[in-house]
């Protein structure tokens, strides 16, 4: 079993937010996980989009806070990466399914290669970024 880097030592810039995703990033300043919700069909969507993936209407979208407790849908242990990750491999990227019916990808903190498996229960770990933002990562629930 290799030692997995939790990537907390990687220097990351401020988020590359777009006009329609800025509310998500603003939420991360308070470590809130905001997800778009299409109120016309009662469904959440991830990632943030300019419109509803369900109805093609942007006016029906609103932001709702979710807890972010979910389980691993799939994972990969990355051995080859570009800077600033290069030389700091391996690290995990996990795709996590939330009960709200969305999947969010993230790096993992404190999860060993032995522990990682599909179905593993995880919760948010908020890692500081520049300008007061945070990045969502996953830790064991």
């Amino acid at each position: 079993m290799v030692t997995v880097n939790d990537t907390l030592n990687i220097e990351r810039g401020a988020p590359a937010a777009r006009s329609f995703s800025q509310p998500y990033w603003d939420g991360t300043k308070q470590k809130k996980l905001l997800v778009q919700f299409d109120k016309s069909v009662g469904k959440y969507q991830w990632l943030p989009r300019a419109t509803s993936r369900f109805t093609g209407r942007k006016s029906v979208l609103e932001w709702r806070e979710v807890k972010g407790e979910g389980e691993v849908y799939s994972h990969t242990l990355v051995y080859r990466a570009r800077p600033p990750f290069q030389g700091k491999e391996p690290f995990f990227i996990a795709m996590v399914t939330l009960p709200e019916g969305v999947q969010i990808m993230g790096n993992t903190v404190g999860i060993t290669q032995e522990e990682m498996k599909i179905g593993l229960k995880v919760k948010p770990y908020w890692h500081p970024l520049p300008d007061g933002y945070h990045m969502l990562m996953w830790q064991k629930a």
Partner: protein
Amino acid sequence: MAMRDTAIVAYSEVKTVQKSDRDVWEIGAEILEDLLNKTGMEKGEIDGLCLSSSTTGAGNCFWSQTTADQLALEVDFCQTVDIGGCSPTGALARAAVAIDAGLCETVLCLFADTAVRESGQRQRHYQQEWTAPLGLLGPPTSFGFITSRYEHQFGLDYRMLGKLAVAQRNGAVLNDLACEKLRTPITIDDYINSRMIADPIRLLDSVMPCDGGSGLIVTSRKNAEKKGYKKAVFPIGYGEKTSFQFSENIVDVTDTGHMPAGAKAFKQAGLTAKDINSFHPYDDFIIAMMIQLEMLGFCKKGQGCDFIREHDFNFGGDLPLNTGGGQISVGQVGLAGGGTNLVEAVRQLFGEGGSRQVKNTKNALVTGIGGIPYNRNWNTSVVMVLTPNG
């Protein structure tokens, strides 16, 4: 279906290299001259230009127009097709439609890219915001997810993926145009023992970025007959799907757009998977080919490994597959790489496979994969059935 009223009357391909010492337009010019030689056409007979995506050209919003200028082609139709790895086969389909609609008569389909020598790409998609900050390398990582998930749902015998890798490499050994670095035989053990890139994706699962190009001359069936070409290949079925199941958040990543695209192509062609003589699937990663075997109906979902175990994919086998080596063993010609699979299919149907010529040439099946979206497999899937008989 009118696409079958168009004919591929010539193909051309340059040697794939790790890094080109020539400009992408020089590669295009070499392909043009070779196609003029093979068809006996004058330059002025070409009145359409349809390009695949090109990493080198990606920073130029005028790419097809500029390339027409550089090659001095006076055309009535020009277009760049921007569906990534699907763009060569997609360009052929669009050329056929343009000819059938009367926009033009004879199209140069050009698939050239020198991504290693010169990248003109400035990406604008979700990745800068959502996946680059996670250290996601792109395709290998996404295929790591797909592979982990496939193994979880169905089990996965990695030696069977290795069997496909070996068959392709056998083809590259016989293919003078394959990148020299990739022309040494490998074994299943070599595949299994190759180093991890994005576990469980290994080095020998993956394509190597290269430079090169290929191209086709496509004309109306009527013109092909008038000019008396002895060899011609016809697209008799085509399906294309972009954003498969994108109205849902969570999909089964082992289902792909090849399912609906394949059903459409087979229906138009009046064929099914069991009728296919040779298969030229887009191969950015080995497992993509196994999933396509399932999606296109060669076998049932989840039974890809069993199917691979039971069949021989070498050029002399019962289902010849990417007989020139595929992109994994030829080298991936940037965003034009789908041309490798497509041109090999045409070459086989022309009966010009040389030392790797397949026996049965009633038809060939070609596919494409393009784009890597968030939490699913790929953006675009294309499927085309080709036949030399019309």
